[in-house]
């Protein structure tokens, strides 16, 4: 770990909250299936910025997503009629969380553009849709299937309809869907198909939700792009085109752009086995075996991570660790940071520092070690959550329970 991770990051404090922006798509290998990824509330987003949540709101929404993931896992694992299930809310869908990153896709013929949250933790892609029984205000004009020459309905007898978690039949025998998220956000409407334009690739007969009744914490986004593992996701639907391969890069700040690409790997990538968990069928699991701080592996058994399991999620902001692992990480990190004055906790983030009087800061490196000998040496912007120069916090949090 020492050899691969290095020991410290030395950072210019002024760069922590840089206001300059570069919103162009990273141009390494522009491809017909590569979309620009931007932070929903940053200057690269086309969405209006007046409703930007505070850091406290954002972290509260993040906890809602984490709670809903734990809740779904527990609900699926609980025996029927067991005491645990009696304590769970009826609604155990995954919370949207803060839905930080958005991409722009095209729907219909002629193509209309829509800004949607991308989410590796859910499956069905949907957009608000006419006729609207109840829609929130969104950024772009609503998708109108009657204006598209390639739109068709899907029958409720179709496998595509019966595969959905929640579907029903309309009076005209077309498929109706409903998705209930763990934060009580919801969308319901018709399952339809139309041409999806992804960058410059055209995907005919793409199945998605035409949301007639949508409410909750969607802000001004036009909908959601589901990148989960189940049959309804874009990953499964485009298997023949892209071989169930996709990749993304999330930018280091909200003032820069990353990418989301279907069907392509990237150079210089180390692979670790992907695992699955039947209790959380949409999510991607992997085998986290250790964490190093400042090049030193924390003294933790790999079972601390493997017993509960580890998932990778684009929709959760702050990583969550088992209590013992978080305590060890925090303790080690604090030992490296004793030169800096502490700052108040920020919601779930309890290890914060005030860099006001510093031009540069020296922060220990943190690396995540995965099965197969893969080491992910975190970028500096993956170690600290910088609310302000006077409140920069270790960007990890502990679960309440080792079994979470």
């Amino acid at each position, binding site marked *: 770990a020492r050899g691969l991770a290095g020991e410290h990051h030395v950072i210019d404090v002024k760069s922590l909250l840089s206001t300059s922006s570069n919103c162009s798509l990273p141009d390494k290998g522009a491809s017909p299936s590569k979309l620009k990824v931007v932070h929903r509330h940053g200057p690269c987003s086309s969405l209006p910025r007046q409703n930007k949540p505070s850091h406290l709101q954002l972290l509260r929404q993040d906890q809602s997503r984490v709670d809903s993931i734990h809740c779904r896992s527990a609900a699926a694992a609980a025996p029927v009629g067991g005491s645990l299930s009696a304590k769970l809310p009826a609604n155990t869908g995954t919370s949207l969380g803060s839905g930080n990153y958005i991409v722009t896709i095209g729907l219909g013929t002629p193509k209309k553009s829509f800004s949607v949250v991308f989410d590796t933790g859910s499956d069905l892609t949907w957009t608000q849709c006419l006729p609207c029984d109840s829609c929130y205000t969104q950024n772009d004009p609503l998708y109108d299937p009657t204006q598209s020459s390639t739109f068709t309905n899907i029958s409720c007898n179709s496998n595509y309809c019966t595969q959905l978690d929640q579907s029903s039949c309309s009076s005209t025998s077309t498929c109706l869907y409903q998705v209930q998220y763990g934060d009580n956000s919801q969308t319901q409407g018709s399952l339809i198909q139309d041409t999806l334009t992804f960058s410059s690739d055209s995907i005919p007969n793409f199945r998605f939700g035409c949301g007639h009744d949508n409410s909750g914490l969607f802000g001004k986004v036009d909908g959601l792009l589901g*990148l989960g*593992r189940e049959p309804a996701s874009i990953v499964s639907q485009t298997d023949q085109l892209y071989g169930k*391969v996709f990749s993304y*890069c999330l930018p280091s700040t909200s003032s820069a752009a*990353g990418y989301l690409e279907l069907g392509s790997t990237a150079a210089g990538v180390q692979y670790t*086995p992907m695992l699955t968990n039947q209790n959380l069928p949409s999510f991607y699991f992997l085998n986290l075996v250790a964490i190093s701080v400042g090049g030193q592996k924390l003294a933790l058994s790999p079972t601390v991570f493997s017993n509960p399991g580890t998932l*990778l999620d684009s929709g959760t902001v702050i*990583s969550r660790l088992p209590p013992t692992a978080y305590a060890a990480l925090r303790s080690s990190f604090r030992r490296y940071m004793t030169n800096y004055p502490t700052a108040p906790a920020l919601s779930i983030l309890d290890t914060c520092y005030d860099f006001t009087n510093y031009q540069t800061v020296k922060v220990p490196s943190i690396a995540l070690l995965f099965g197969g000998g893969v080491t992910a040496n975190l970028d500096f*912007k993956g170690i600290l959550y910088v609310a302000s120069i006077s409140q920069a916090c270790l*960007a990890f949090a502990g679960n309440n329970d080792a079994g979470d």
Partner: protein
Amino acid sequence: VVIIGNVQQRRFNVVYDVGNLKIGFGANGCS
């Protein structure tokens, strides 16, 4: 469960090869 969130994924090329059941990480994938 343990969750690896999006702050920790920043700047990595994260590759999901679902067909071959593997996930890849490559540093410095974007700015």
